[in-house]
């Protein structure tokens, strides 16, 4: 057995050129597989995560009537706690205690305008808990200038396009006017302390952040918020967790007032992504299939070329099964070398691109701002991806070598020797 392996090695290194060609094919195929998978996963994951961060959370608790009035950014249907005694803070505490909940993130959304003298610019304000936003989303990375707002201060953070529309910069002051919960128009001056450049239209063009307590005070919504998002330890447990939350709401007697919605039920783009993910998985399998096809072809040709050699070995007494094993070993060894190098190079390429990203901003020009999809795609770089590709390569190549190996093993010595292709 051992000697077969040695023979396999010898054969490989004997016909250097041929070996190099075969291994190169494997390397390139594996690189392509690693990159494709990284790109596809990167794209899908970033869309999912943007959606979770800025729209639905893993689970979302809102006032039942709010769902319909959301597009008006109504302030009449808020979440204010379980009762008079058990207000918003108690609610947060109890929510945090539910199994599987990592973080509870409140947001107060409202409509606002700024008068630039010539025109009125419409925008949306989000009253938030800064620390929670930074922990939950990738907002921190997207703050291109300045910093996030500090609790209780009259500060705002705005998107770069929005700042451009208003002709303002970080450090300037801006007077924002909004309709309070009591339908009175109210305005206040804030200091712009940060600029967001996120490649998400929503964040860059429409939105501004301010501290939750300030928003509550200005809008006369103390102790209230328009929605509460949940970050779970495992997002696939969203269905179960939302059931638990609904049960809690029921216990507290507010089940007819509030409801918890998990991300799958939210509708919107996310269900489309489930679909897209599946399309891409199918494509991905095709790509792998194509790569293996290439490899099989290569091996068949190799066998063909060595027909005489095989005949010789056969006539020298090498058993059929040994010939079979020999060729399979050769294939496997080439597979291991090729897949390893391919995985390494593929890994390097995806690692580089995962930091730099592929800029598709041009292609996304006409997209609306409600769509939460980043314009720069970062392929996903992960060791598991590399390991997966490596084993995939080895297994497929080994399996692929069975076909030519069997052919080789079944050759009649006399035919083989005679055969001059």
């Amino acid at each position, binding site marked *: 057995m051992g000697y077969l392996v040695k023979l396999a090695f010898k054969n490989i290194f004997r016909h250097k050129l041929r070996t190099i060609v075969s291994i190169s094919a494997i390397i390139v195929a594996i690189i392509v597989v690693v990159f494709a998978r990284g790109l596809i996963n990167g794209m899908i994951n970033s869309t999912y995560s943007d959606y979770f961060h800025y729209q639905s959370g893993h689970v979302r608790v809102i006032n039942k009537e709010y769902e319909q009035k959301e597009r008006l950014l109504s302030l009449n249907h808020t979440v204010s706690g379980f009762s008079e005694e058990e207000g918003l803070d108690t609610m947060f505490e109890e929510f945090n205690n539910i199994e599987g909940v990592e973080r509870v993130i409140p947001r107060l959304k409202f409509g606002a305008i700024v008068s630039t003298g010539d025109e*009125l610019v419409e925008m949306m304000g989000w009253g938030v808990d800064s620390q929670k936003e930074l922990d939950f989303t990738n907002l921190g990375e997207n703050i291109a200038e300045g910093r996030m707002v500090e609790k209780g201060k009259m500060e705002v953070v705005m998107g770069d396009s929005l700042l451009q529309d208003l002709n303002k910069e970080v450090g300037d002051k801006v*007077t924002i*006017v909004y309709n309070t919960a009591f*339908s009175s*128009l*109210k*305005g206040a001056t804030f200091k712009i302390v940060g600029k967001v450049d996120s490649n998400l239209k929503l964040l860059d063009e429409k939105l501004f952040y301010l501290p939750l307590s300030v928003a509550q005070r200005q809008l*006369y919504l103390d102790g209230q918020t328009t929605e509460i998002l949940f970050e779970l330890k495992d997002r696939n447990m969203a269905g179960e967790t939302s059931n638990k939350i609904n049960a809690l709401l029921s216990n507290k007697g507010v089940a007819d007032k509030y409801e918890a919605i998990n991300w799958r039920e939210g509708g919107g783009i996310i269900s489309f992504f489930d679909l897209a993910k599946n399309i891409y998985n199918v494509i991905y399998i095709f790509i792998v299939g194509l790569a293996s096809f290439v490899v099989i072809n290569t091996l068949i040709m190799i066998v063909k070329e060595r027909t005489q050699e095989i005949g010789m070995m056969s006539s020298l007494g090498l058993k059929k099964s040994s010939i079979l094993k020999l060729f399979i070993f050769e294939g496997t060894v080439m597979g291991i070398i090729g897949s390893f190098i391919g995985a390494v190079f593929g890994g390097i390429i995806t690692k580089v691109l995962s930091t730099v990203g592929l800029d598709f901003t041009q292609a996304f020009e006409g997209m609306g701002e409600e769509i939460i999809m980043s314009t720069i795609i970062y392929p996903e770089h992960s060791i598991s991806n590399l390991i997966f590709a490596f084993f995939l390569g080895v297994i497929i190549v080994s399996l692929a070598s069975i076909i030519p190996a069997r052919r080789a093993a079944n050759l009649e010595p006399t035919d083989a020797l005679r055969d001059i292709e």
Partner: protein
Amino acid sequence: MNTNKLTKIDFNMKLITSFLIMIFCLIFFSQNMMAITAEEIINKRDENEYIESARIEAKMIITNSGREMTKEMVSISKGEDAFVEFTNSRDRGTKYLKKGDNLWMFFPDAEDVVKISGHMMNQGMMGSDFSYQDIMESTKMTELYNFELIGEGEYNNRTCYILEATAVEGKEVSYYRRKIWIDKERFIALKEELYAQSGRLLKVSEVKEVDEFEGRYYPVISIMENKLRENTSTEFIVEKIEFNPEIDESIFTLENLQ
């Protein structure tokens, strides 16, 4: 002898005729004196209600689909300019300045003044049923509407002239047609129905209380009801009013807003 009799009859005829003529004239002229025109009614009403300049302390109770909110304000107006400052706790410090066709707002938490224009003008002020545009309209009604006296009626036990006002063609007014009940004695509009061009009744304004100030009458409690939405109305209460006070022109400046 015969001539004498004739002359006597002639004279009597003349006497009777001129007497008849006199009575006829009396009746005719007195009819005219009694018949008041729509134009005159409105002008008399304007004498009471149209404000050249005044200082008013008022309260507005706004009911919107059942939710109630109260605003209190002080307003100083002269001709086309007006200055309003809110005094209720939630809105304290908020000020509006109208100068001609422009409207600016100042909020206590803001460091500069905000100019309001465009479609925002059509929104209800402070959530009430009076839009900024409505409040801003300082043009006299007679310039915007054609008035017709269509009869008399009773409102709240008071006899009223009923006038119908139709928008003058081409003028930009919010309500195409208005039906107005004007108190015959006091010349105050006690009730007003505001109609859309389609004939649909949009709003009804009713005066609950009228007071007299230095020989002139003024409505102190009135309610505007939105007929298109249930439970939606605005009550306007004048707590104190001073007509033609001493007004410093500098009140109507942006500087005064801040």
